[in-house]
């Protein structure tokens, strides 16, 4: 009985007393905000880079664009995300005075873009060359063929890998506290420093990430089923 009372007291102290849940709520808000926009930005950058690279590679005159895409992926994948975060924040903060959430969204979006680009590239390459040939033989342009025929099929193939990348990204936002963004992790730390009990707030934060990832996984499954419609025989 004492044991359960102890747990209840800890939760009460970490969550309810002095309206401390408000910290978590604003933290959750920031985490969701950063995650959502970073995922969107990452997907847009990644898809754009992969497609541009695919359409430009090996072509006379525009081959160098593909080289730039390679460089982007090389640099972003080759440096730690925390260093990128601090760097982007320093640049934005020093010269523009922008807010830290914008810096976080930019950093995680640009970072994720490099990984998404590689995933999308794999997806594009997984589609049979005959699909492109069929599209082109009908008179569709290279871009139209990519957009209407190759990409929809590629996205379906890479959905599991994309889902994985986004889950990693959501959890990665937990380092946003380094640039003074109060995300859920930072909020938990803050409450912990007030109550002299770090463990309970961090467990609450962990539970929140679990729920978020659970929802993302469900969404992914839903999308996979929808896009898998044409596979049903």
């Amino acid at each position, binding site marked *: 009985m004492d044991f359960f009372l102890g747990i209840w007291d800890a939760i009460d102290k970490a969550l309810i007393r002095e309206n401390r849940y408000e910290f978590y709520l604003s933290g959750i808000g920031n985490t969701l905000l950063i995650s959502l926009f970073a995922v969107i930005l990452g997907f847009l950058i990644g898809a754009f880079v992969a497609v541009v690279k695919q359409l430009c590679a090996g072509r006379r005159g525009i081959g160098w664009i593909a080289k730039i895409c390679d460089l982007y992926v090389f640099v972003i994948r080759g440096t730690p995300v925390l260093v990128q975060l601090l760097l982007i924040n320093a640049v934005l903060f020093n010269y523009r005075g922008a807010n830290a959430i914008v810096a976080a969204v930019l950093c995680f979006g640009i970072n994720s873009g490099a990984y998404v680009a590689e995933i999308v590239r794999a997806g594009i390459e997984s589609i049979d060359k005959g699909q492109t*040939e*069929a599209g082109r033989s009908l008179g569709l342009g290279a871009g139209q063929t990519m957009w209407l025929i190759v990409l929809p099929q590629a996205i379906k193939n890479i959905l599991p890998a994309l889902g994985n990348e986004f889950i990693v990204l959501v959890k990665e936002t937990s380092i946003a506290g380094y640039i003074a963004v109060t995300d859920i992790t930072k909020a938990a730390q803050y409450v912990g420093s007030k109550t002299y009990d770090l463990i309970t707030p961090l467990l609450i934060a962990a539970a929140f990430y679990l729920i978020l990832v659970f929802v993302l996984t469900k969404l992914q499954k839903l999308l996979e089923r929808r896009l898998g419609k044409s596979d049903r025989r």
Partner: protein
Amino acid sequence: MIDVKDLCKSFDNLHVLNGINEHIYKGEKVVIIGPSGSGKSTFLRCLNLMEKPTSGSICVEGEYITDRKANVNLIRRKMGMVFQHFNLFPHLTIKKNITLAPVKLGLMTKEEADAEAMRLLERVGLADKADAYPPQLSGGQKQRIAIVRALAMKPDVMLFDEPTSALDPEMVGEVLDLMKQLADDGMTMVVVTHEMGFAREVASRVMFMSDGQIVEQGPPDEFFANPKNPRLKDFLSKVL
């Protein structure tokens, strides 16, 4: 209609086509046969620039498509192509497969394209499959849809790249029947195939390719009854 001059194609150091000169007239049904590796598919694929010729020129209806400034996409609209492996778009319904290009290229409204698609599907007896997806179809059905998809662009010439080679034997007939109908309607056709029966029955001219050249050609009766080239004789003795 299609004029080919000194067409050469090589992949790195492998010379696939060695200087082909040929003219294909409107309404002709040209069947190209030959052993594998003889360059017949490559020749066909050069005609709509699926393969870029290394040298030589190709002129389609007065337009030099090998010219660097030529608009390849515009020329391809007039040249339907049917592939060995069908290459239907698996993520789209049959109807969408057929209407995609005409609608997206602004040649027809969605309604016109739908009506045209249904008319063509009706003709090949697959109207009930309009809302099915390609994976639900048999090989023969897929290839008939692929032909219909190319026809929906109202092409002036149809290129067939071994259209029956990937089919189960029992399904070859339905595809060849459709091709025969097309030939009877006066379509200009260039067909790469191993179906000697089809060549004999439908072709207005049969070509034999070997080592990247057209070694012998002629009307089918003469061609099959009286082959002159030793390599053609050898080839025919193996396949007939």
